Structure formats: structure tokens, C-alpha cells
């Protein structure tokens, strides 16, 4: 398990941090952009530290969601890493790095709109009259 590339670790931990499945995250088409943004905005040693901690949480949890969440709260929301972690989550949810919108596409792929059962204003429009009804819900298996 520890043979993961940093990008794989990034994706896996993002699943636990965002509450979205791997395919949900991949479906935004933003993985490469976000991974690169994350790495480029940090000092190299911080990147290394962060992924070391992430891998440790993932490797020592025996795939228990509960244990991973505990690790996240303790380590990734710990005072040293909390700002990186919240930036990472914010990136998936809004397409922003800090106050800056990463790209036009990142804005339209923000997961916060999905969480709100809405859509990013100005993109992914739901069609004439859709707002008169509750949002569409398609049952999952």
C-alpha cells in the first residue's frame, strides 16, 4: 500500500476529506490540476511531510474509515497541517486556492454546488423551468 505515488495518495485522502467517491472526484476532471496546484504552492519539504503523514494515516488504518477519520482529525487538522488541509478541501469544493480561482474550469467543477443540490452559477445550467421543482434525484443502486 505504501507504494502509492503522491498523486494517488492525494486522490485517496481527498476522498476522505471531501466525502466524495474516487469516481466523483475523477469525474470533475480536475485531479491533475488540483494536485499540481497543491504541490506548486507548497515548499517541497512541506509536500513531503504532508504526504508522509497522509500515507501513514492510510497505511495504519486497515481501511477502517473510522480510523482514517481519527487520523485526519488528529494529524491533518492538527495545528501544523490544518491550513494545508483546509486549502485542499476548499480546492475541491470551490475550485479556489486561497482566494484565487484556479481556472475557469475549476470554478465550474466546484463540488460545493453538488453538495447544495444546485449548480455553479453560470454553468451546468439545469434547463428551463427546472427551478420550479425539487432538484432531480436519481436513485442509486
Amino acid at each position, binding site marked *: 500500500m505504501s507504494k502509492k505515488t503522491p498523486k494517488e495518495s492525494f486522490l485517496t485522502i481527498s476522498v476522505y476529506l471531501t466525502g466524495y467517491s474516487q*469516481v466523483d472526484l475523477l*469525474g470533475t476532471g480536475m485531479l491533475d490540476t488540483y494536485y499540481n496546484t497543491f504541490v506548486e504552492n507548497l515548499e517541497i519539504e512541506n509536500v513531503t511531510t504532508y504526504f508522509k503523514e497522509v500515507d501513514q494515516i492510510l497505511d495504519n488504518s486497515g481501511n477502517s474509515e473510522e480510523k482514517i477519520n481519527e487520523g485526519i482529525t488528529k494529524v491533518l487538522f492538527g495545528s501544523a497541517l490544518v491550513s494545508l488541509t483546509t486549502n485542499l478541501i476548499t480546492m475541491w469544493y470551490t475550485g479556489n486556492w486561497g482566494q484565487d480561482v484556479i481556472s475557469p474550469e475549476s470554478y465550474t467543477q466546484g463540488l460545493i454546488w453538488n453538495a447544495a443540490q444546485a449548480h455553479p452559477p453560470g454553468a*451546468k445550467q439545469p434547463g428551463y*423551468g427546472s427551478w420550479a421543482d425539487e432538484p432531480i434525484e436519481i*436513485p442509486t443502486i
Partner: protein
Amino acid sequence: MEALFQKSNSKRHRLISNKFLQSLNDRNFDLLDFDKLKENLQSAIELEHSTIPPYLCALYSIKEGTNEFAVKTIRSIVVEEMLHMVMAANILNAIGGSPAINTPDFIPEYPTKLPMIDETFMVDLGKFSKESIDIFLQIEKSADHKPHGGDDYHSIGEFYTAIRESLILIDKNTPGGIFTGKPELQVTSEQYYGSGGKLIPVYCLEDALEAIEEIMGQGEGIDNSIYDGDQEMFGEDKEYAHYFKFNEIYHERKYSPTDKSDDEPSGHPINIEWNEVYNMQKNPKMSDYPVGSELYQKTYEFNKTYMALLNNLHDACNGQPDMLLKGVALMYDLKYKALELMKTPYEDDGLMAGPSFEYVN
């Protein structure tokens, strides 16, 4: 010869289901057989529907903000296919039939074959590419109204002509006529927008004939001078046939006003970026993925949405025309779900997943 540019709809494509093939091959089908007429109209609905998934795949695979011309063109063609599907249902309703739009065999299994004897080619669900546009050209060409040689070969135009004649004959020979369907079943023009053409509600023979004209695209041909200065300046393009629209994409060039229908387009170049697409795996299937995997689930959700749309269309064409409005939201949702799939790697080979357009319960 048909005019290259038409005000209304065009020479049409047809992709033909096996059911439809039968009716074509049954050369002696009785034009006075009322049940057969209803069957043929049901086949017409299925035909009109069957190009929609391939065209949608090509359309959705184009990356956002690129290939403006291709997006606009394919989008308008898809909208017109839907228009024709609903109009075929209107005719069927007008003569007391019941369109069936959500049955398991309504959706063809892709890749699917075209019935043309001499030109066998398979139609895929796949990305926007020169290859797929070439297939679309062949689909559209198959709608050619020209008579063909060989006993087994009939054009789509002839099929609609048969429906047309059958409607006239049976209506004439039936006391009180056959247009006894409930008028409230008709889907009316207010529910249609977004492309050329006109949604014609059918209450009598004349309406039915007008609707068939509209479907067959024998609209008013005009001469070749589409570009006068004002129109160009104010961006008003004339509508013309689907075949020619696809041909412009294929050749990355617009027709010039003097081009004849046999010519390759020779006008302004169009910017087509063949690489600005999601590299969708051809003809994806739910069965490609382990049951319960995330991609299986996503594809299932897509198909579920697609089924909801077909159910919605079914209801709209069976007494609840206002349901069409609600279908709009499903259409958009379908697109966003397809896009999510197209952005998700299929395997580690650079190919992406995609919508499978399969019947699910």
C-alpha cells in the same frame, strides 16, 4: 436535385432498427392495413430516436469552450431528431395509436448496423472524431431520396412516402376518417424550441402530411445566395441539410454560396480541433465494470437518468404533453452525468469511460 440550402429541415439521416428493416423488406405490405400503418409509425419513432445517442456522445465528448461550430451544429441536429421523434408520435396519437417509448427494445444495442445493403457500416457510441463524423455522413446520406437499384433496397424517403400514402388511403376509405385520436394527446409547439423546424400538432390528415413533410425535410428550397451583407453582419445563417452540416465539419470548411450539393465545401475555413475531446472508450457497457464498482454505479446512474428521460417522453406522448417541460431538466442532467463519465479514466490506457445508453430497470 435537392437544393443545398433549405429554410426548414433537411434531407434526413436514418438509422434503421431491425424492426424497421422488416417493414421495408416486406415490399407488399398493404397500404390499407391500418395496424401495419401504426406499426410503421412506431418504427419511425424508434428510428428517429436511434441516432440520438451516437450524436450525443460525439457532442458531449467535445471539451467545453472548444469547437464552437461543431457543438452548435451537432446540438441543433440532435434537437431536430427529437422534434421528429415527437412529431411521429403526434401522428400515431392522432390516429388512435399509442407510442411506446420506454420498452426494453426501444434502445438499439451499439454498435449497431445500418440496413443499407451495399454500404454496411457500424454506428458506435464514441467520441467526436473525423471517423465518427464520417459515419454520421453515411447515416445522413442513407436518407437520400434518390431511387436505388436492387430489389431489397428502399430509401427512408420511400418509407415515409409509404406512410404518407397509407394515411391518405386509409383515411379516405374509413367512414369518418382515422384522425379520431384525442386532441389533448398532442404535443404542441410551445413545448419545442432551440433549433430550426416547427413542432406540428396533428389533428387531421393535412396536419399529418405537413408533419411528414417537415420530417422528410422537403421544406422550401431556396437558391444558393444565402449570404447577403446584412445577414452576415447580423449573424443570421440559413438552415440547411444535416448531411451538409456534417460535411462542413468533416472538411473543416464552410460551404460557399456558389457550391453545389455535390461539391466539397469551398468557403471559409472552420476551426475544428479534433484533439479537444474526451477520449471516450467506444461502446462502453455496464458489463465492462465489476458489479458494484464506482464506475458501474456511475454508468448505472447515467442509464437510470436516461430511462427517466425516456419515461418522461413516453408520458409526454401519452397524455401528459406538459411533462416535456420536466424532461428538459433530465436532458441537462444526462449531459452532466455523461461528462463525468467522460472525465473518468476507463483503464490505465488513456481511454475514458462514457455513457452506455442501456435499458435498466
